């Protein structure tokens, strides 16, 4: 091994980075080679300079401040944009929540009560107690709840062609609440018709 090949080992030896056995080999060579002793001495000095340079040559504070200022100038618009987006998102959520609350208070229930089914049976022939309403009761009349207009109910009763004719009942109310006069008239043609 010539001396050039020792140089890199000496460089590590000077830095204390060689294993014990390798360091012993270098020490043995240095004891025999004046040229490598000179090389090791110069290496020691340059390494000390390198390590001491860690504290040297610090740029002026203004150079550090300039970097800081440039970074912060770059970040400030991003941060303000982020704050603006957060404010926008929060406002949107609050508005949506308010709309939901208003609609939940004003809108009909999601699952309305079952509408009472009023059977349209033929009027009993007798004894009539009172004139019956001719339309179906609406839910708000029954449950006291306002409802949106509904489509007209589909008639569920077959045409009355097959039914017997109803008698016409007229209720006459007198001043005395205990006296009610009913006038029942048979609407069928009792005279045989045409």
């Amino acid at each position: 091994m010539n001396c050039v090949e020792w140089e890199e080992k000496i460089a590590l030896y000077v830095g204390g980075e060689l294993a014990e056995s390798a360091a012993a080999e270098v020490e043995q060579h240095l004891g025999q080679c004046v040229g490598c002793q000179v090389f090791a001495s110069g290496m020691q000095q340059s390494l000390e300079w390198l390590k001491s340079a860690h504290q040297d040559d610090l740029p002026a504070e203004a150079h550090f401040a300039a970097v800081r200022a440039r970074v912060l100038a770059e970040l400030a618009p991003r941060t303000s944009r982020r704050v603006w987006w957060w404010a926008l998102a929060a406002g949107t959520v609050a508005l949506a929540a308010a709309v939901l609350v208003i609609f939940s208070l004003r809108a009909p229930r999601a699952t309305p009560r079952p509408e009472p089914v009023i059977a349209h049976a033929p009027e009993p022939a007798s004894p009539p107690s009172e004139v019956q309403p001719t339309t179906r009761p609406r839910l708000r009349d029954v449950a006291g709840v306002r409802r949106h207009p509904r489509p007209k109910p589909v008639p569920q009763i077959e045409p009355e062609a097959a039914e017997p004719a109803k008698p016409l009942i007229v209720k006459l109310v007198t001043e005395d609440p205990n006296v009610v006069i009913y006038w029942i008239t048979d609407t069928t043609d009792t005279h045989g018709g045409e």
Partner: protein
Amino acid sequence: MEMPEERSRVIESAKAGDLSAFEQVMREHERLVLMTALRLLGRLEDAQDASQEVFLRLYRNLSKVETPTLAAWLYRVTVNVCHDLRRKPAPTAGIEDVPEPVAADPDPQRLTTEAERRRALTLSLRVLSEKERAAVVLRDLEGLSTDEVARILGSSEATVRSQVSKARVKIREFLERYFRRRT
């Protein structure tokens, strides 16, 4: 000296978007970043550009960076950013490029003043390959262990030792020639 708890609190505030806390993080690590970049690039203006980019990357990645590994993260990103910047054509210096001293002084002892020594060291770093320079800057100038340098550079300890030894030999030869010319 700031306590680790206080440092963690500042970093957490910075993560939450507190710019003044981030500025404090920058103040604590700006020497590490700027000086490493300066030694890798050789020009203060380039080093400032690199530092700016490093801190912007830090801000973007704050949520991913663990406080105990922040310094190692900064070293690694600084090396990478400087590597990217060096892809641009950069002046290379050989011994022939070294400027003559301002006033010739026959006394070699006086030549090796602090300023001259710093100048020679700065120039010596330019004759290294990029990987050798990164290894020797982190190992000898920043004082990191071989293991830490290997982790930052993403290589093995054996590779780092080889790069550092080659770099030291080149630096020593450069300095010897530099001061021989001065005398």
